[in-house]
């Protein structure tokens, strides 16, 4: 064990000051800014804006499912365009961009004690390429034929054929181009997040002293850097199939009585590439949420995160394992059936480190001093929905159980619970938590309570019963639920109920947006460290942190990120940059 070094023996920070970029005009300060904090806000605002589009699309879909035949303007074509855009936007343009581009940019430099990202110029480019990708995506709504309706998985051959909206028009081309742009932009940002964690850490910030938020975002970014190329390859090859008549994925096909020119290609090849990206993508969204929620729970329960080391190892293990489970999305795709044995086993093995994380969150609550602030409420809600969605994942990962359930509403309910609702709840909690740092003011508490209860209970009421519709056997991606013998009258009623709740939940988000905007001016003044937290971002000399984050001298880190309620210490928290020892060096009994 390392002994304690008295604080005054420590030499001043020797961190080589990086060449900090200095803005010279309004434009370079707020628009073409290279400051990670500004870029973070740009990323978040863009992601939220496009996320709202996805939210509205989900209402339209729920209208159709809840009240079939009532809304004529929602044709099957339109419905498929809605689900595709909704799914793609939510997963990639909202969640990935918000967690990594938004939270990553804001929190990584502050939490590791750096002045900025290591390659600020590339970081800025990353945002602008992302914005371009979003614009290309949006433009497909206005293109002839409309956006693609191939489903967010974009499976060929149908993605590039006439029977699918946008398949023979601009829709699919714009979608693929937008994804390619997104990947290029993300790679630029991702390099920054990874290398900043590697090289930008301040003195004393060893890996094992990093807050779990940084661990989560860091691991997710590494995974994203390695997984997105698979999507890139798939997109490029599909573009060639569509535009230049190659046959990577396209076999011989008779479309509406016409023999197409393609021959010999393999649709399964696309699926392998897509899911090689697609499964890690689930964890790219989940790991930052894991990290952030650990910090929320620890801070608001005034207790160190239970089993920090296990938490770190679990993050690494999950990140590594998630590259060898991709084909659990393909159990009934017609791939070689013996793959099922392998992938079911790896999939269920991942459940173990994931379960450990859950245990450690709830054990952190045990004998804590739980402040039921809004971030804490969202964190608790996250645990409920994540456990629920994770457990239904054990159904779908267990290959033979997946046979009746795959491609039914059960799947839709499962992935919304686990990668839709759960991470979004963490995002909300994180916004309530860090908003005071970003703006200097607190979000309104009453509106926050309203937002929390409606969102949490509403989301649970939407997606819990939906599993049972899937259990009946109702397939997903059905624009019409008419003429189906299994859809009983009562199941239709349940669908209407779900749709109504979906509207309520959507409405609560408007209240939240209002709160976000209103509180910038009118919120209660927060001070520098309203939650009395230990991590470095709360120890900045100014709030909001000024350019360069830490004033004249970078902080020096003396302890891990979780010194809450240390026996013998006066306060119930000791910031990471406070020197001195307060405890017995031996492990508490």
């Amino acid at each position, binding site marked *: *064990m*390392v*002994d*304690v*070094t008295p*604080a005054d023996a*420590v030499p001043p920070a020797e961190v080589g000051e990086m060449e900090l970029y200095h803005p010279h005009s309004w434009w370079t300060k707020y628009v073409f800014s290279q400051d990670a904090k500004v870029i973070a806000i740009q990323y978040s605002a863009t992601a939220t804006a496009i996320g709202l589009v996805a939210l509205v699309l989900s209402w339209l879909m729920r209208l159709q499912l809840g009240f079939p035949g009532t809304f004529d303007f929602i044709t099957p074509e339109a419905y498929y365009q809605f689900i595709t855009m909704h799914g793609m936007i939510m997963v990639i343009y909202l969640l990935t961009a918000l967690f990594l581009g938004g939270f990553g940019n804001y929190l990584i430099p502050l939490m590791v004690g750096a002045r900025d990202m*290591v*390659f600020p110029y590339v970081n800025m480019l990353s945002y602008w390429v992302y914005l371009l990708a979003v614009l290309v995506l949006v433009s497909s709504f206005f293109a002839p034929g409309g956006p693609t309706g191939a489903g967010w998985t974009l499976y060929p051959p149908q993605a590039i054929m006439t029977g699918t909206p946008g398949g023979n028009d601009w829709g699919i081309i714009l979608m693929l181009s937008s994804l390619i742009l997104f990947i290029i932009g993300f*790679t630029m940002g991702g*390099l920054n997040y*990874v*290398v900043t964690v*590697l*090289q*930008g*850490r301040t*003195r*004393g*910030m*060893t*890996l*094992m002293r990093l807050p779990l938020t940084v661990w989560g975002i860091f691991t997710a970014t590494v995974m994203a*850097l*390695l997984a997105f*190329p*698979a999507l890139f*390859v798939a997109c*490029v*090859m599909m573009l*060639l199939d569509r535009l*230049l*008549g*190659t*046959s*990577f994925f396209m076999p011989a096909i008779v479309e509406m009585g016409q023999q197409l*020119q393609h021959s*010999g*290609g*393999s649709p399964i*090849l696309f699926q*392998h590439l897509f899911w*090689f990206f697609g499964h890690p993508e689930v964890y790219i969204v989940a790991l930052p949420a894991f990290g952030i929620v650990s910090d929320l729970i620890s801070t608001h329960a005034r207790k*160190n995160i239970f089993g*920090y*080391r296990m938490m*770190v190892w679990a993050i*690494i293990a999950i990140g*590594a394992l998630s*590259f060898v489970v991709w084909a659990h999305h393909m159990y009934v795709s017609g791939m070689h059936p013996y793959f099922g044995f392998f992938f079911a086993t790896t999939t269920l093995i991942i459940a173990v480190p994931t379960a450990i994380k859950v245990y450690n969150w709830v054990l952190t609550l045990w004998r804590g001093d739980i402040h039921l602030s809004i971030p804490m409420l969202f964190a608790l809600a996250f645990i409920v929905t994540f456990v629920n969605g994770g457990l239904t994942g054990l159904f779908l990962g267990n290959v033979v159980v997946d046979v009746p359930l795959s491609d039914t509403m059960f799947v839709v309910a499962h992935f919304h619970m686990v990668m839709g609702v759960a991470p979004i709840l963490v995002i909300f909690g994180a916004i309530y938590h860090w908003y005071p740092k970003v703006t200097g003011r607190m979000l309104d508490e009453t509106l926050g309570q309203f937002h929390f209860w409606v969102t949490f209970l509403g989301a649970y009421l939407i997606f819990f019963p939906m599993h049972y519709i899937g259990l009946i056997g109702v397939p997903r991606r059905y624009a019409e639920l008419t003429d189906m013998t299994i859809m009983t009258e009562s199941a239709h009623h349940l669908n209407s109920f779900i749709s109504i709740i979906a509207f309520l939940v959507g409405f609560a988000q408007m209240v939240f947006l209002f709160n976000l905007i209103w509180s910038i001016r009118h919120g209660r003044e927060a001070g520098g460290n309203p939650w009395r937290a230990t991590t470095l971002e709360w120890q900045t000399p100014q709030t909001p942190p000024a350019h360069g984050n830490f004033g004249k001298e970078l902080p020096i*880190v*003396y*302890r*891990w990120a979780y*010194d809450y309620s240390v026996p013998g210490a006066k306060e119930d928290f000791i910031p990471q940059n406070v*020197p*001195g*020892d307060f405890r017995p*060096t031996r*492990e508490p009994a």
Partner: protein
Amino acid sequence: MSVILVFLLVIAGFAGWWLSHQRLTAKPWLEQGLAGDLVGLERSALPTAKIGLGVFLAVVGCLFSLFTSAYFMRMGLPDWRPLPLPRLLWLNTGVLVLSSVALQCAVIAARRGQTDMVRLGLATAGLTALAFLIGQLMAWRQLTDDGYLLDSNPANSFFYLITAMHGLHILGGLVGLGRTSTGAWNGARPERLRLGIELCAMYWHFLLFVWLGILAVLAGWAATFVSICQRLLT
């Protein structure tokens, strides 16, 4: 998907090696202060830009491994007709090797502070890389003239696709090389210049390595190798 899995295994090896030096089993709550042992656990002594480039090259490697994986999976289907590699590719390979060698000379010269040699090396590297690209375009021409069109067979499609991807990466490298060279002629600070040249060289060597890999795949040696391995295993 085995190629990409092997590639990721290599990456995982690197990551594991690095992590094993980070004392992930330490109990951080027992270690306060800034004791001497913690120093080794901070940033690496390598320049940050090199680490950044290293991470980027891992992503590029991932990309090409995925193309190769897709190549092998598609190759097994019955409509695959391998295409004859134009002889020109061998010449191009030589030119690319030359380019890498020239940059390596520039690196050595920069370390010794020989400005003229640096400029010579940079110029040679740039011109040969350009020559490589032109050579690749001529190879494409030859193939299309001989009737090996992009869409007539998946083997052709992959050939054009992968060489184009590689060419684009070289083109991107040329942009970086151009910036570094401007510095060399306009008298940039020597350390800065040296770092720039070293980065270019690193990128160049990597792309050369990738090209040799691609060549092995396109020429069919890789497939032979794989089938030998399979026979040995079974």
